[in-house]
């Protein structure tokens, strides 16, 4: 049946990948930034076109690259698999001459700031919400005063786990490891707690990664490649160690997942191939187990009814995994699912926090917010914690993680 095997796609993973660009400009149609910000030259120009000049002289790296959200929608739209977003991020990290300021450090250091803040909650939350603090952040740090900085949890997820869950995990015959991410640990522990509950109900014990650190994405986004590299090295090592014991590592954050799987390799240039496929989103894991007949969804609460508007986050689009989360939600009796057109919310990690980006960020998200208002759903569901932040602030809608919905449905 088969002729000799061949791989014509090999070139798509070469350093010359941008050569495949046919200058068709389709990427520019789907860039959420260039539609609202004329100073951003667009993905084609900032990516493959600019790259030819940067190869001649790095002086052709300009500040406008910072305006890129790293949403990768250009890559998803590209008919030729050009890694446009990666080209832009790499150029930015390799050629940036700016020293990151206090704000960048503050925004990027989710781990450090989280550690301090959770010790000091609720005082920290009060301080964060004070008008004077917002004014200070706005003026001195350039964190927009309009923005509700994420509040910090009183008890970190790790602490909660240690106190409430750790002991009983060994009672399960099957085990999964959990990379919870900074947001679950310090800001919003609910998806983490829901994850442990759901996995336990499905018959899996949960192990945490030993000494998990920030995935490094905020450091890449804030122009600190060295910090990001250090974290990536650390996490890869920890993941390798963990996976020797527990080969399946699950996550609830689409961005952490995407960063470890793709950005470590494509942007930071690290070899992560042995770790990459061991990491999966919890929704994908559960969906596949059910599909393969290895798992049966336990009965849900009889009166469970929820009208859900599902928002596919940018990095979910890039992963191509929205199908898993939305299909899993569809499997839950009582769920009415509306698929929102996949549009960027404008937050992009810490981008929307910055004073100079705040208005642009909301403008980028406006079509999505409009669609959410029109959907008249009980809740918006998304796999991304920062989309949640932005959507809640901009629309007032209640936003949940798919695993939280599953936990609610299974609750007894």
């Amino acid at each position, binding site marked *: *049946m088969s002729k000799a095997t061949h791989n014509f796609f090999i070139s798509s993973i070469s350093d010359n990948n941008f050569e495949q660009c046919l200058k*068709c400009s389709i990427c*520019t149609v789907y860039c959420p930034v*260039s539609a609202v910000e004329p100073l951003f030259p*667009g993905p084609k120009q900032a990516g493959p076109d600019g790259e030819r000049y940067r190869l001649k002289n790095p002086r052709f790296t300009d500040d406008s690259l910072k305006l890129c959200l790293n949403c990768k929608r250009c890559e998803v*739209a590209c*008919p030729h698999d050009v890694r446009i977003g990666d080209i832009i991020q790499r150029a930015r990290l390799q050629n940036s001459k700016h020293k990151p300021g206090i704000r960048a450090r503050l925004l990027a250091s989710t781990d450090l700031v989280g550690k301090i803040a959770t010790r000091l909650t609720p005082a920290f939350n009060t301080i964060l919400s004070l008008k004077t603090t917002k004014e200070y952040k706005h003026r001195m740090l350039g964190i927009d005063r309009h923005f509700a900085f994420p509040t910090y949890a009183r008890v970190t997820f790790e602490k909660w786990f240690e106190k409430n869950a750790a002991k009983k995990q060994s009672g399960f015959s099957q085990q999964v490891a959990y990379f919870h991410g900074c947001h679950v640990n310090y800001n919003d522990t609910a998806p983490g707690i829901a994850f442990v509950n759901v996995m336990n109900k499905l018959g899996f014990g949960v192990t945490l990664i030993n000494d998990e650190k920030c995935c490094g994405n905020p450091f890449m986004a804030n122009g600190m490649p060295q910090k990001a590299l250090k974290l990536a090295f650390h996490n890869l090592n920890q993941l390798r160690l963990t996976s020797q014991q527990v080969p399946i590592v699950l996550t609830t954050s689409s961005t952490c997942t995407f960063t470890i799987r793709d950005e470590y390799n494509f942007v930071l240039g690290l070899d992560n191939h042995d770790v990459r496929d061991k990491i999966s989103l919890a929704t994908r894991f559960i969906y596949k187990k059910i599909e393969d007949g290895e798992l049966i969804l336990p009965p849900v609460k009889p009166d469970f009814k929820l009208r859900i508007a599902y928002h596919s986050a940018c990095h979910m689009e890039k992963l191509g995994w929205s199908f898993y989360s939305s299909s899993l939600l569809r499997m839950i009796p009582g769920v009415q699912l509306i*698929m929102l057109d996949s549009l960027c919310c404008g937050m992009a990690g810490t981008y929307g926090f910055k004073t100079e980006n705040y208005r642009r960020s909301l403008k980028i998200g406006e079509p999505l917010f409009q669609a959410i208002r029109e959907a008249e759903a009980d809740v918006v569901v998304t796999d991304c914690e920062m989309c949640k932040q932005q959507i809640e602030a901009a629309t007032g809608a209640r936003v949940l993680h798919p695993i939280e919905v599953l936990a609610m449905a299974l609750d007894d």
Partner: protein
Amino acid sequence: MKFNTIIIGGGLSGLTAGITLAEQGQRVAILATGQSRLHFTSGSLELLGYNPDGSVVTAPLQECESLPASHPYQVIGTQALRQFAPHAQELLAAAGIKVRGNAEANHYRISPLGIPKPAWLTLDDYITADSQLSFPFRRVLLVSIAGYIDFPIALLRHGLQQCGLECNVAEVRTPAIENLRTSQTEMRATNIARILSEQAAIDQLSVEINRAISGEEAILIPAVIGIADDNNLKYLRRMVTRPLFCVSTLPPAVTGVRLQTRLRKRFLNLGGTFMLGSTVRKANFSADRIASVTASNLPDQKLSADNFILATGSFMGNGLVATQDSIIEPIMNLDVDATQGRDSWTSPRLNDPQPYMEFGVHTDSSLHPAINGHIVPNLWAIGAVLSGHNPISLADSTGVDMITALFAANDIISHNI
């Protein structure tokens, strides 16, 4: 993941097949590397624009009879063309795309250079001429947007004059659009369309257009309105004092994006699964049939189905790949119709018919491709990946896309009953 039919390729042909199958209740997935050739369209669809001898086709349904036997219309039988041409129009209408024209007689669309080209269906809001190349008006106001360089106004005006129109040009600028002019690259049709998706911006535009109007009978504007739907275009038409029509621009094409968006929406509303960013790299066979395919971004996921449709396009869609010395269908290494030797792929004169344009997957009369001469019975090839047609010298590409898609979808349905 298990589907009734998996379609590889999300352009016009893939979506047409997907919609048709989903309408019949099939569970369908479309896997697409990225966005499609629709982004370069003109606002018109073509069934057959020119005969092989270069003469203009006036009656496509009749003149298709003289196409060579290798042409997809002949492969599936010209009866199928008669049967499915009206379906195509209905399918577009159901997706909210209103078109003019029919398969009995071509009309003319007007290119961005003002050159008339024969067309089958044209979006309702575009300028067209009848088969005698006559327009319902003679004096037109040609509106250009200051700073927008993808609308070659000086050349277009000349072309329109050659068509017998009297043509005045008015350059308009509005505050909403002005902001975009600060971009050195992004004043593209689609970005202008995003600005003009706000009614206030249309209001500004209509004021400027009405101010420029003097004795003209009609207004022509670049096709830069209506990326998701044509509501704002309708609104502008109400706000201006003369009949208003669009002229297509250089790519990216706003109407192409609209076509893509509406067809995709229609497919999703019918319950279809559309996976963008998923390049199919491999098909897994069970005996002579495809059991599943594997996509680049889901390497550990088997995507299985009973039927598969290959709608990957020609070279620019990577449906075909030219290496230094051979032409290949890259996913399954299907048998292709192509000449031997790089010299024979192209013609030295650019405007002569280029042989490579007609290269493609070889199929039987049911559009089943083959591997080493063995038919793959649960695979259909449709659209630009097929051999034997030429989007330029015959002006048949969108017709081949839709008609072969409808043919394959109906073949699948009839076999699955």
